[in-house]
Every structure is written in C-alpha cells, then in structure tokens.
C-alpha cells in the first residue's frame, strides 16, 4: 500500500518535471536564434561596456525574436571575456564585446599572457568607438597639452598620471606621447574610469586619461576638469576648443569595442547576427539611450575590424617594441 502511493508520487513528480523542462524549448529545425543569446561584457557592472550592452539587450528582442542576456567577465583588458567566449560552443549564441587588447592579445604579450590569438576569433561587427581624453583638474597650471609637456621636459619624473591599466589604450597612447617628447612621468594604474577622474579631482595625480563619455563629460561641463586633448577622430562637442591628438601629430588607433564570436561559428549564423545587430543599432530607443550617455555607437562590418587588426600587428607592434613593451 505504501509503495504504491510512493510510486504515484514519483510518477506525478516526473510528469511535473518533464512539463517544466519541455515548455518553450522545443525548436527543432527553427531558424536562429531559438534561445536567448548571451552577450559577454568585458568590463564590470556599471561600466560603460556593461551599460551599453544592457541597453542593446533592451532592444534585442524586437529584432531577434529572442532576448539577450548580459554577463560580465571582466579582467585582463577583455582577455578573460575572450577566453570565456572561446570556451563556449561556436553556435552563435555567445557573443563577446572585446577591446583591442583582447582582440589581438598576441601583440600585448608583454603585459599579459595570451591564451588565444586573433586567429581564433571571428569579428561580427564593430560596436563602439570610445573617445577618451587627457584631462587635468580645473585649477591646474596647465592650460594646454603643450604646457604639460613642457613642464614634463623641464622636470623629469615629477608628473604622475592615472590610467586604467598598463597595456591598455590610455596607457599606450600616453607612453607614445612621452616617448615622442622624451619626458618621464610616473604612470599609476587604477581600476576604472571613475577612479581616474576622482584621482585627478582630488589632486592626487597631475593628469589622467579616460573615457570622456558619462561622468567625465559632466565634470568637464561643470568645469571641474579641464580637457587638454582628445583621442578621437574629431573634436568633442563638450569642448570644441580642445584639439585631437591626431591634430597635434600623434597618430594612434581608435580605442574601439567590437563584437566577436569563435572562429568556428558558421557563416550563415554570423550573417544573421550582423543583420539583426544593424537593426538594433538603428533602433530609435537604443540610439537615444546612447546619445543621452554620450556613447558613440557605430556599425561597421568585419572588414573594418580586420583593418584594425592589421594596424595592430603592423603598426602597434613595432611601436610597442620601440617603447620597450615587447618581449
């Protein structure tokens, strides 16, 4: 008697289990995507990347029919995210947002061990161009970049600046500037752009380099920070009198973020991803969110990214060698 009752319970339980498992997951032969897509953010919660991807995920459903989930895999200047991406199935359901150091890790081996190379990745499309700038506190004696560099030449080793990690774009650009002008400065790595802004505001370092969108933008507007130079293709609306590094003669590659999948992902799926993402980028609610925060979103196909990768290998690598950042 007791045994039979237990068996009934088991059967009931099994039915409940199957019902739960089965609901919404049968999609034999249906078109991609049939389940949610995972977007891997290479920087932590609340940062620019994370926010951008979450905004993207809010319009994802409209254009893909499936929602997007954002997970954060910070570390190693997006190498951890790249590593994670390559550990997943190459079925198009995991897409990672990587920045240059994680796209071509083989160029940056001086700074961190590369567990993969750009050959293992397949670019989907470009996502953002990150404009960043060099800024000082409002009461700083430096009015232009030239002032800063002159001071640096006359007082070697006195200046200290904040950036977000050795081997990242901000650090590399500054090292290039230092090398060109033959000055010595102390570079101090911090964890995030907000940290950098804070250190400059507090007068703990003489200047800093970080992304201008968001917090820094509002601090510049409030005249707490003074922008001295911008690393971008054009001047920023918030400070149109400030020249770009390129205008001043420093050519560097843009700090960009792009979406990637593992190389083995089938081409037809990648094409579907591209089409859908293009629609997402054009989506009005997405663009208005990005505009409000000052992020620059740009769609560009894989050829542009391949181009960047080429630049990385052909121009940046020798530059790094010259600066002493190559093994």
């Amino acid at each position: 008697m007791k045994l039979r009752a237990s068996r009934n319970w088991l059967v009931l339980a099994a039915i409940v289990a199957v019902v739960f498992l089965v609901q919404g997951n049968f999609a034999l032969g249906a078109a991609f995507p049939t389940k949610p897509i995972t977007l891997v953010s290479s920087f932590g919660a609340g940062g620019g990347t994370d926010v951008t991807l979450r905004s993207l995920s809010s319009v994802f459903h409209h254009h893909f029919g499936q929602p997007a989930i954002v997970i954060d895999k910070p570390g190693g200047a997006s190498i951890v995210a790249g590593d994670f991406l390559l550990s997943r199935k190459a079925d198009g359901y995991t897409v990672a947002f990587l920045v240059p150091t994680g796209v071509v890790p083989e160029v940056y081996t001086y700074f961190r061990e590369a567990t993969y190379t750009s050959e293992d990745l397949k670019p989907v499309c470009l996502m953002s161009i990150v404009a960043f700038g060099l800024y000082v506190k409002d009461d700083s004696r430096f009015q232009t970049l030239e002032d800063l560099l002159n001071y640096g030449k006359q007082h070697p080793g006195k200046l200290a600046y904040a950036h977000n990690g050795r081997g990242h774009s901000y650090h590399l650009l500054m090292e290039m500037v230092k090398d060109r002008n033959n000055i010595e400065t102390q570079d101090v790595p911090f964890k995030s752009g907000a940290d950098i802004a804070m250190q400059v505001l507090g007068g703990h370092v003489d200047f800093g380099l970080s992304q201008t969108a968001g917090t820094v933008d509002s601090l510049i507007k409030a005249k707490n920070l003074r922008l001295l130079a911008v690393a971008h293709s054009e001047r920023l609306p918030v400070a149109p009198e400030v020249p770009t590094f390129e205008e001043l003669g420093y050519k560097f590659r843009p700090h960009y973020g792009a979406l990637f999948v593992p190389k083995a992902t089938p081409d037809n799926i990648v094409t579907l991803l591209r089409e859908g993402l293009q629609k997402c980028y054009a989506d009005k609610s997405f663009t208005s969110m990005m505009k409000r925060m000052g992020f620059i979103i740009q769609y560009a196909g894989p050829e542009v990214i391949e181009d960047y990768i080429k630049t990385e290998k052909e121009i940046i690598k020798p530059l790094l060698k010259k600066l002493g950042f190559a093994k």
Partner: protein
Amino acid sequence: MFLAVVLIINNMRLLKKRSGYAKIEESATETSATQRGKLWAGILVCFGYVLLMNLVGFLIVTFSILVVLMYLMGQRNLRIIVSIAVSFTALVYYVFSKILIIQLPEGLLSF
C-alpha cells in the same frame, strides 16, 4: 610554494597536538563512526555535484544531491524526499533560467 604548504600543515598539526587536542573531543558533539561516515559521504557528494554539473547537467545533479542530502540528514519519507527534490529543482531552474536568465549547465539533457 609546495614547501610552504607542507610547513603550514606540519605546524598546524603541532599546534593541534599541543593545545587543541582535548578540545576537539568535546566540541565534536555526538560524533560516532556513523556520523563521520555521513559527513564524508556528504562532502564527497557535494564535490561530485559540482564536478558532474557540466557533464550531466544541472537538473539531474541538483535533483540527485537534494535526495542524497536529505537522506543523509535524516529524512526517510520517500514521498517527501522525492516531491521536494523535484519541485525545488524545478523551482530553482525556473527562477534562475527563466527569470534571471542565467544559463545553467545542460549536460546530457540538451534540448
């Protein structure tokens, strides 16, 4: 590095012998051979749970571990064990994968 670990373990053993040995007997309440056995079984099962998760899948291992742990902790009523194991596994799965949208390892049951 390895030496450091060896040194630490050795020192801890010495410390234990000198100061804490008697204390252990009294602080381990009601410990008998069966209790120890249950504890080790439990620990092994927990490790097995994690290590097998990617292989076998979240649902199977979670169900199994709930059954085993409940049994080890004194539950003997099969009805309760199974129904709780099933419903809780389903609940956690539902909350985490549908509401929080976190992909739990699929293992054998990929669909």
